[in-house]
Structure formats: C-alpha cells, structure tokens
C-alpha cells in the first residue's frame, strides 16, 4: 500500500514537449511511472518518445484515462495549468514549479477547495511524490529510494527529502510513499493531510517528518499527531541557526516575531511524543531504532 500514488496512477506531463518537463517527465517514465500523455496547447497530435501529446489535460484524460498531472511549467503559467488539470478531473496534481506568486497560490488553493474538492494538489515548489517501485512524479532521483515500507516520509524541503530517502536506504529501510509538500506559504497538501493518510495506510508503520522554519505547519502537525496519530513519528526541523526576519530561500522559510522558529516547532513536536532529531543523519538513526522495535 501507499498514499496518493501507486501502480494504477497514470500521469499526464504538462509541457512534455520541452525543457525541464521533458527531462523529468521522461525520467519518471524510465523509472516505471505510467506516463501516458503530454500536454501542449500548440502541439496536440505530436509524440514525445512514443508518448502522445494532447492540446489540453481534458483531452489527455479522455484519451488515456490519466488520473494525475505533473506540472513543471514556469510560474507565470503554473496556476492556470493546475486549474486546467483540476477541471479535467485529475485526482493528484503534482506541481514542482518554484516562484509562483503567493497571491496566485492562495487563490488557486481556495479555488481548488471550492470547485474541485476531488483534486489533491501536491506542491508547488516541491520535489514531488514517489511510491518507490510503483510511481515517481517529480524530480526525486528514483534510485535513492528503497520501496516496500514500513516508513512514510513527508517533507517541506526537496534536498532534505532526498537526504532522508538516502539515509534510510543506506540502512536497508524502505518507504511506502515519500511526499514532498514544498516550501511555499500555501502548500496544496499539508503535513496534516499526509499524516492522516499515513495513519490510515496499513503498510505505513512509522512516519518521518521533515520540516523547517517559518509558518505553522509543523505546530499544526504536532497538534494532529497528539490527537490522531498512534504510529511512531520521527522528525527533523531545519533552520535552528537561521536569524529572525530573514528569508532563507524558500518563500516559506522566514521567521517573523517569535513564531515559526525551529526551537518552537521542535518543542511542539516533542510534546506530541515525536522523536526529534538534531540533524538529518540522526533522524535516520532514530528511525532505524523505531523500525527495529516495530
């Protein structure tokens, strides 16, 4: 089992005909992901390495039965691509685009919630989602992920997600699904969404949660864990040394006032019974202990 994506997931790659979308879309296909179609409004009817391209997501879905979209188009175009995918009925929409204006992001989030409640947006500004051996949508290097469970991973940071997958693989620990929720202010899928899904997934026996400074997502996750999660959770929060008021790359990673500090997040998680690590390697080690005791 897994969450959000599996071997039945059929993916449409927006902008498959060029650039990053082509590079990652084809890599995802080579990994074994069912990449069934591409979308480009000007190039419907063409093919990219045997993958048919349609003028829009709805046509692609109709022709191929696709149920997921992969969006890596530039920030200017990403909001309309997300909504196009939702309108076409995609159940999962993975958007890795970095630099979407916050106002667009907030509006799209709200529009999805009102008009397309059946669509789950993962991202934007995230590495994507991978259920190892079954489906990889995004930019994760599939070879660093070991499948089969029992660990579920949810992370706000891209490279720290890879780091976590890598550390676990080194120790022979597999993952069910690894979700990169992204570092932007309004992620389509939150820590809480992923924790709820992992809690409900019988194959996932423990959860690795990687957070960072800024926002309140980790604190909300801590509250949710206390109430609703009985599976062990290991966490790592980046940004202990970050100075307040400075934006650390991710739009979301900024400390304002006393809110959103790594210390506050670590404390909230520890109080919720989460094992909190002080660096990525220690997080891997703590998870190894958890897995041994399962």
């Amino acid at each position, binding site marked *: 089992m897994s969450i959000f994506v599996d071997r039945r997931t059929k993916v449409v790659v927006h902008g498959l005909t060029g650039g*990053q979308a082509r590079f*990652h879309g084809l890599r995802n296909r080579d990994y074994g992901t069912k990449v069934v179609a591409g979308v480009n409004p000007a190039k419907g009817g063409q093919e990219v390495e045997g993958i048919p391209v349609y003028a829009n997501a709805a046509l692609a879905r109709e022709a191929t039965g696709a149920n997921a979209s992969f969006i890596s188009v530039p*920030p*200017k175009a990403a909001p309309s691509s997300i909504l196009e995918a939702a309108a076409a009925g995609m159940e999962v929409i993975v958007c890795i685009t*970095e630099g*979407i*204006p*916050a*106002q*667009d992001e*907030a*509006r799209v*989030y*709200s*529009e999805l*919630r*009102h008009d397309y409640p059946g669509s789950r947006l993962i991202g934007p500004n995230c*590495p994507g989602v991978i259920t190892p051996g079954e489906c990889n949508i995004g*930019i*994760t*290097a599939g070879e660093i992920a070991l499948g089969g469970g029992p660990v579920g991973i949810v*992370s*706000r*940071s*891209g*490279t*720290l*997600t*890879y*780091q976590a997958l*890598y550390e676990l693989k080194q120790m022979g620990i597999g993952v069910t699904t690894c979700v990169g929720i992204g*570092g932007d*202010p*309004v992620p389509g899928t939150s820590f809480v969404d992923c924790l709820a899904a992992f809690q409900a997934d019988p194959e996932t026996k423990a959860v690795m949660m990687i957070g*960072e*400074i800024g*926002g*309140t*997502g980790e604190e*909300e996750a801590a509250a949710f864990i206390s109430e609703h999660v009985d599976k062990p959770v290991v966490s*790592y929060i*980046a*940004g*202990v*040394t*970050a*100075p307040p008021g*400075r*934006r*650390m*790359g*991710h*739009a979301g*990673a900024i400390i304002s*006032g006393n809110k959103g500090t*790594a210390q506050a997040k670590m404390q909230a998680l520890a109080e919720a019974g989460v094992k909190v690590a*002080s*660096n*990525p*390697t220690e997080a891997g080690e703590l998870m190894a202990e958890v897995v041994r005791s399962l």
Partner: protein
Amino acid sequence: MDLFEYQGKQYFARFGIPVSPGDVAETPDEVVAVASRLGYPVVVKAQVQVGGRGKAGGVKLAADEGEARAHGEAIIGMDIKGHTVHRVWVEHASDIAKEYYASFTLDRGAKAHLAMVSSRGGVEIEQVAAEDPTAIARLHVDPYIGFSEAQARQLVEEADLDPEARAGAAEVLVKLYRCFVEGDADLVEVNPLILTPHGQVHALDAKVTLDDSAAFRHPEWEEFAGVTELDERERLAKSYGLQYVGLDGFVGIIANGAGLAMSTCDVVNQVGGSPANFLDIGGGASAEVMARALEVISSDASVRAIFVNIFGGITRGEEVANGIVTALGRVDIKVPMVIRLDGTNAEEGRKILRSVESETVITAPTMMGAARKAVELAGGK
C-alpha cells in the same frame, strides 16, 4: 522585498489610498526645498527599515525653515539600531484626531487572507495584541472570493472605530485590499491610519512587503530595486540571482535547496563551527551558477573554509562537479574547500572532481563528516 515608508506611500497612492503630500530628501537643503513647497508645518521622517525610529529621534515636526534644516541635519546620517539614515520623507504635518490600525496579510495556517483593524493605532500592534486581543478586529478573507465593501463596513464597526471615521476607513480598507492582492504584497500595514479633525481618513505610515516572486508582472517595481539594505556580499549574490543571506561565522556554505542549505548551517554549528552565510544555488544549477556562488563566498574575508553540500535531484552531479572545476579555474579560492556530493549522477560527478582534488580541495562522503572536516580546516575546532 520590504519597501521604505516613502515607497510604500507611493505604492498606496497608485491604488488611491489617501496619503499626506510629501517627498523624499537626501540633504538638509532638499528638506527645506520640499518643506517650503508643501508649506509648514512639516514632519521629517527617517527612512529606515527598522521599528522604533520615533523613539530614536528619527521623526521630528518642523514649524519653519530653521527647524526643517536643523532636523534634516540631525536625522540624515543618523544611526538607528545599526541602520544609517540615507534619506528622509518630508510631508505636510497632519492634524490628528484619532489613530487606528489596519492591515492585510496571509494567514498561512488558515490558508486565507487576514484583515486586521483596530481602534488602537499608533503603537506597536503586537503590544496591543498582547495586552488586549479583543482590541483587534480580525476577519479571514477567502482569496478566491475576495473582500467586499460589506465586509469592510462590518470590520470597521467591529473594531469600534469612531462613527465619523467608518465610511472613510471602509473605503480605505477596500483599496488597501486591492493594493495587497493586485499589488502582490505579502503584507500591507497602515499604522497609524488617522482620522483628521475634518473627518478625513488617511494613511500616515505605510509598511509594504512585496512578494519577490511576482516581480515578473510588476515592471514598475524596478524603481524600488537597489534601495534595499544589503551588505556587499548580499549585493553581489543578488546581482547573480543567488539566494544568499550573510551570517556572522567563518565557514562558507554552498548547498542546493533551501532546506539543505539551512540544514548545512545547522550541522556546521553543531560540530563547533559557525556558518558565514546561507547560500542556496537552487535547482538546475549550472557550472555558471556554481562558479558565481564560489565567487561570492570567496569575496567574504571572514570565510576560512568552504563547505559545498550538494544532493542531486534536479541538479545533476556532473553539472555540479563541472561547475566546481570551472570555478576553480576562474576564481582564486584561497581557503580550503570540502565537497560532499551525492544523489543523481553523483558517481559521474565524483569522477570529474578527482581531477581537482588536492590538499585544499577535499571530498567527503557524508554530511556530518564533511561538516567536521570543514570546521577543522577552518581552524574552528
């Protein structure tokens, strides 16, 4: 990007939000010139991006030319909490009957816009919130639906603004919301929003934080560029389009991804070092980007060792390695460098790096090991 008050007011004016007439001055002569054009009395306000300038003597009322010149001389060049005042905003002094507070921002927890209005303006709003949370009226606004005039009227009523101010304040709120959304701001804040004895409501201060991600659709933001307070390292990094934040330590950090860059700073700290900077070279980093990153780090005299920490996903290992090789040929790097490379095409990358390995260019397989080595080479521990 944080705007100075005068820029914020100019931005407000674009959206029809009433502000006092005024202008920027950079010398005492200019202060006098602006003041005589506006008519006395005027207020001379230091333009710094830090709170508490009033208490520091950075805001002064001038009744005539002599006072205007004296305040200009005193305030321009003044140091306020480490910020040098390079310019002042001179505006016609307003008669104030009441001071209110109004703002729009994004409430990330609620994933909605948050409007806040208070009848207790003119002081730190955090202080009001701490002393009496009920003194601030709050309303969540659905970004898809927007903010209506009816909501604005309801909000000023809930905030218990004086009856004669409500219509004017509601009108300002609607315009302020437009400024927030169409103006692509992360925050718009007016403190104080004043009521004059003549019943006019207008913005006496302006705090605007623009969302840098939206710059592509705001060519008019060009005029704001270059005035943000950056140190030399940050200026160079910015000109190269790198995500860089200067810190106080001695280990230069280059990493890909904000999370990994932050984590790298943390790990250096944990093993007894201290990061000189945060530098995220982002996804798809090319040889060019790596070379520029090394150039920025090398320009920092406090850096005693460099820790390059790359985990490949979108950034492929051979690109990183080629970037390092290119940079080493181009930039004169005087301090030792520890490179940890892993992830997509890491093997290919490591092969390329072997050609440049030396006593001062070292590769290390793990993040903790690399951090220890970098700190050791920096002489930190």
